[in-house]
C-alpha cells in the first residue's frame, strides 16, 4: 500500500493574534507546528502501513522551513519526505494549492491512498483535500472518523456527520480527509527521530513538477484576500415586550431589518 500524507506547517493558533493596526496575522514569536489534523492523517497512514505493509510519503507545499514538519512526520513513522517549494508558489489560494499538489502527486506517483487533515487551522477552508482529489480525478471521502476494513482494493469507512456517521465504501486509489476522532497520534520514537535526522528530503520545484506558471501562486489564484479583520463585538441586547403576537411581529421586523 503506497500512501501519501499531505501536511502543512501552520502557526500555533494558541499564540496567534491579529495586529489591530494592519489587520494582518501577527506571526512574530509564534511557533510553527504541524497542522493538528494532519497529525491524525499521518497516524492513520502509519497504522495502515503497520497493518497492510507499504510506504508512507509525507508531502508538503511550503517555504523551505516546512522541512521541519516533514522531519517530524518521519520521526512519527513516515518513510519518505517530499517538499514542494518554489517562490512561484507564494500567495497560492486553495485553487492554486490543489493544482500544485496534484502536479507534485502525479510526479511522485499518486499511489493507493492520499490522506489529508480535514482542514488547516490557519485558513480553515477544508477545500484543498477535495480539490486535490478532483484534480487527480479520484474519489474522495471527507471527515473520515474510522477506517472499518479493507480488502481487494475496496475500503470501508465511516464519515462523521452532525448526527452520527455514514458508512461509505470506496475503491482505491482515493483521497480521505480525517477528523481528530479517528485516532490518537503517537509520540515520535527514538529510532524515528534518528532516521529523521539523516533522511534526505526530495525537493520539487515548479519546473520539476511540470507546472503551468500561470496556474501557480498569486497569479493562479481565483480568490484574493482583500482585508483581514476581527469583527467588532457589539454585544447589543434588547428585550421584546408585549403579547406573544406583538413580540413575534417585532421579531419579524427586526429580522427583516438585518437582511
Amino acid at each position, binding site marked *: 500500500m503506497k500512501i501519501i500524507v499531505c501536511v502543512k506547517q501552520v502557526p500555533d493558533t494558541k499564540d496567534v493574534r491579529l495586529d489591530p493596526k494592519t489587520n494582518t496575522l501577527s506571526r512574530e514569536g509564534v511557533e510553527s507546528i504541524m497542522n493538528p489534523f494532519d497529525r491524525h492523517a499521518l497516524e492513520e497512514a502509519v497504522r495502515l502501513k503497520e497493518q497492510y505493509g507499504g510506504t508512507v510519503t509525507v508531502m508538503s507545499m511550503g517555504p523551505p522551513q516546512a522541512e521541519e514538519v516533514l522531519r517530524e512526520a518521519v520521526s512519527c513513522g513516515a518513510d519518505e519526505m517530499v517538499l514542494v517549494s518554489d517562490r512561484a508558489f507564494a500567495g497560492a489560494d486553495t485553487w492554486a494549492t490543489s493544482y500544485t499538489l496534484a502536479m507534485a502527486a502525479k510526479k511522485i506517483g499518486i499511489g493507493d491512498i492520499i490522506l489529508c487533515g480535514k482542514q488547516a487551522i490557519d485558513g480553515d477552508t477544508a477545500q484543498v483535500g477535495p480539490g486535490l482529489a478532483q484534480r487527480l480525478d479520484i474519489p474522495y471521502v471527507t471527515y473520515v472518523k474510522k477506517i472499518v476494513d479493507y480488502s481487494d482494493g475496496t475500503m470501508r469507512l465511516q464519515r462523521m456527520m452532525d448526527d452520527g456517521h455514514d458508512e461509505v465504501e470506496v475503491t482505491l486509489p482515493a483521497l480521505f480527509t480525517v477528523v481528530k476522532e479517528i485516532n490518537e497520534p503517537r509520540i515520535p*520514537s*527514538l529510532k524515528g527521530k534518528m532516521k529523521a*535526522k539523516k533522511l534526505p528530503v526530495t525537493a520539487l520545484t515548479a519546473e520539476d513538477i511540470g507546472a503551468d506558471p500561470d496556474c501557480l501562486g498569486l497569479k493562479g489564484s481565483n480568490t484574493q484576500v482583500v482585508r483581514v479583520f476581527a469583527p467588532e463585538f457589539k454585544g447589543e441586547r434588547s428585550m421584546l415586550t408585549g403579547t406573544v403576537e406583538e413580540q413575534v411581529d417585532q421579531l419579524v421586523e427586526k429580522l427583516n431589518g438585518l437582511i
Partner: protein
Amino acid sequence: MDYFLTEEQQMIVDVARQIANEKIIPQRAELDEKEEYPTDIIKTIAQADLSGLYIPEEYGGFGGGSFENILALEQFARGCIGVATVFAASALGIYPMIISGSSELKHKYLPDVASGKKTAAFALTEPDAGSDASGIQTTAVLDNDEWVLNGSKQWITNGGEANIYSVIAMTDRKKGARGATMFVVEDTDPGFSYGPKEKKLGIRASATRPLYFKDCRIPEDRIIGRVGTGFITVMKTLNISRPGIAILGVGLGQSALDVAVPYAKQRIQFGKPVISFQAVQHLLADMAIQIEAARALIYATAKYIDSKPKSISKVSAMCKTFATDMAMKVTTDAVQVLAGYGYMREYPVEKMMRDAKILQIYEGTNQIQRNVIGQELNKEYSRN
C-alpha cells in the same frame, strides 16, 4: 544548565519529555486517585523505543548505558514517580540477567522486554527479610531437571503485572550468604501466584504485591549465573540501579519547583507576590540548589559507571541518599510555599510529597546506604 549531551542523548530527553508532558502529567492525578497501573503509558514508552534503552543491541535494545537510562527516567519522574517506578522496577528485574545471565537466558527474555511486549520485576524482600536480605526463607531445591521453589516475597513492585520475575532463594542454607541463588520465574509457571495489591501512601500508579511459590517448578536452566552467586548478583544489580532511583528524586524535585516558583509569583499577600518575601525566595533558592547539585552528582556518577570501573557501590549509594533526601525536603518545602493550597489534592504538590517518601525506603533505606558509604570509607582509608 547545559550538560553537553550528545545529539542522541538529547533525542532521548526530548522523546521522554514529550511522553511526560502529553501522556503522564495529564493522567497522574487520576492514576493516583484510582491506584491504577499505567498500562497505556507503558505502551507509549514502548512505541517510542524507550523500553530497551539499557538493554544491549544484540538483544534488541538500544544499547545505552546508565546515563541514557537516567536521562529518560528523569523525565518520566518529572511526570510521576509512580509511573517512573514501574519502568525502573522492570529494569531492576532485568539487570540480573544482563549482569550474570547465560546467553540463552538473555536471548530468551531480553528481546521481549526491549520491545515492550513484556515487563519484569525484582523479588528480594520477604516478610522477615527487609534491610537484612540474608534473612530470606524462600528455598529452591533441584529435583531431576527442575528447580522447585517454596516461600513468599512481599512488596514486589510490578508484582502481578510483570511477566518475568528475578527471584532470589536459598539453595543451601548452611552456606549463609553464599547459599543463595537467583532464578527467572515466569508468570505462567505452575505453583506461582500473587496476592492482593497493597494500599500505599504514594506511588499509587505502581502495583505492589506479595508473590507466592508453592512447589513452583521451573526448568533447571532458569538459573541466573551459578549456584550460590545470588547475593553477588543482587549487590551488582542494586549498585547499577540506585542512581536510577536517585534520579527519580531529581525529576520529582524539579517538578515540585516548577509548580512552586510560578505559584509564588502569582500569589498575592500583603499586596505583593509572595516570592518577594525573602523567606519564600530563600526556600525556593535552596530547592533549586539541592536539585541541581543532585542532578550533577548523578550525571557524573552515571558516566563514571558507564566507564566500567571496578567499584561503584560508594558513589551509587551517595547518589541514592543525597537525591532522595533532597526530594523529600524539596517536595515538603513546595507544599510549604503553596501552603493551604499545596495541602489540597487540587494542586499537584501534595501528591509529590506523598510520593517522595518511598525514595528514602526502597532499594535499600537511606540508613543502609549510609552504612555502605561508611564501610567503603573505612576500607578506603585502611589501604595504605
